[in-house]
């Protein structure tokens, strides 16, 4: 009898510690973890991942001289020097007073250092180059800078994430915080961690930016999307990157 109670006691302790370990485990899941093995395989195999075609084009752009300064990216940045960069943006550029995302940073280099015209948002070149840069952060943890000036922008991004909008009166959080993992129509609602941008989305049959993805959701909610150059996108991205802090970058990712 005593043996039984000791065994029961041990079993209880074991189960309790197991439950605690479960509770302490990171509950966050990336879009990669939510997709089926076929798509995961497609992403993992560089010869099958369609985003790698854009990376190749971006690599060529990297060494191409441009602008009145007749400089290429490679003239200033050594090979591989972009490691970890995509994992920490948006950030406030030197001399700046508000954050820019990776695309914004690329365009600052174009206008300030290359004396060239900025790339258009969602332009082929911007997608190519950002895919090439993002690939260099693959496998690294998302690591937003500890810059106290970012706090206010990030907080605004959080308000945008939690605020209701559109004719359907939904917030991002309604789906991606409160109902992630459930089915919206036939699709599993992801937790919305921006680990893989730019992404090759099968629905688009193309590479696209986080801004494009955010715009999709807003249109779905029947909300007026932010203007193309709106700072709201950056603030939202800041919030999302902080929410995904420590998660593994898998850019350029494939998504359904």
């Amino acid at each position, binding site marked *: 009898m005593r043996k039984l109670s000791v065994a029961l006691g041990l079993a209880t302790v074991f189960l309790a510690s197991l439950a605690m370990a479960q509770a302490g485990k990171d509950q966050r899941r990336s879009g990669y973890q939510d997709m089926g093995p076929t798509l995961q395989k497609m992403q993992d195999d560089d010869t099958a991942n369609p985003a790698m075609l854009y990376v190749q084009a971006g690599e060529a752009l990297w060494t191409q001289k441009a602008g009145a300064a007749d400089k290429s990216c490679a003239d200033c940045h050594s090979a591989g020097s972009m490691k970890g960069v995509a994992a920490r943006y948006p950030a406030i550029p030197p001399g700046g007073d508000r954050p820019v995302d990776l695309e914004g940073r690329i365009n600052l280099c174009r206008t300030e250092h290359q004396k060239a015209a900025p790339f258009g948002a969602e332009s082929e070149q911007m997608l190519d180059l950002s895919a090439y840069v993002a690939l260099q952060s693959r496998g690294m943890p998302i690591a937003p800078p500890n810059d106290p000036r970012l706090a206010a922008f990030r907080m605004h991004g959080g308000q945008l994430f939690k605020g*209701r909008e559109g004719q359907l009166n939904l917030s991002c959080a309604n*789906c991606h915080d409160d*109902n992630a993992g*459930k*089915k*919206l129509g036939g699709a599993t609602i992801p937790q919305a961690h921006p680990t893989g941008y730019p992404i090759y989305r099968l629905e688009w049959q193309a590479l696209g930016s986080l801004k494009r993805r955010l715009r999709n959701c807003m249109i779905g909610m*029947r909300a007026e999307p932010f203007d193309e150059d709106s700072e709201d996108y950056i603030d939202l991205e800041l919030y999302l990157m902080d929410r995904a802090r420590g998660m593994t970058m898998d850019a350029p990712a494939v998504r359904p």
Partner: protein
Amino acid sequence: MRIALFLAAVFAAAVALTALGVSAQESLRSYVIVGDAIPDSLTGEAGDAARGRAIVANRSVGLCLLCHRAPIPEERFQGDLAPDLAGAGARWSEGQLRLRLVDASRLNADTIMPPYYRLDHLQRVARNFAGKPILTARQIEDVVAYLASLKE
């Protein structure tokens, strides 16, 4: 003097805004909430359950199946983040169903259920949907009739 002018301007602006608000509101039929229900039809007429079924099944009209399951077997890919609509007519009266469609936030401020027949307190509504409820009064009545027919 300057203050009086300012106040007059504020008053005029308020009147103009109210007028705008009222005109937007006027496209909606008025209704009376009794308890947790809107007992009377918005149109004064009974809805058509067959039309209601088609609205529920249509992903760009009713949008219902994005979140709810319903006994509409020909529609695959039904959502599961809201209650199954099967048996809705056994659980709720027509009046209760009507209020839950018109403005479920009257019953639960945090509900994810969109307000299908409300125009106020909405932010950033897309231009092509501005000033329009998700469903018309007649469509609401059709959906109420359909849901009320789902007894099991």
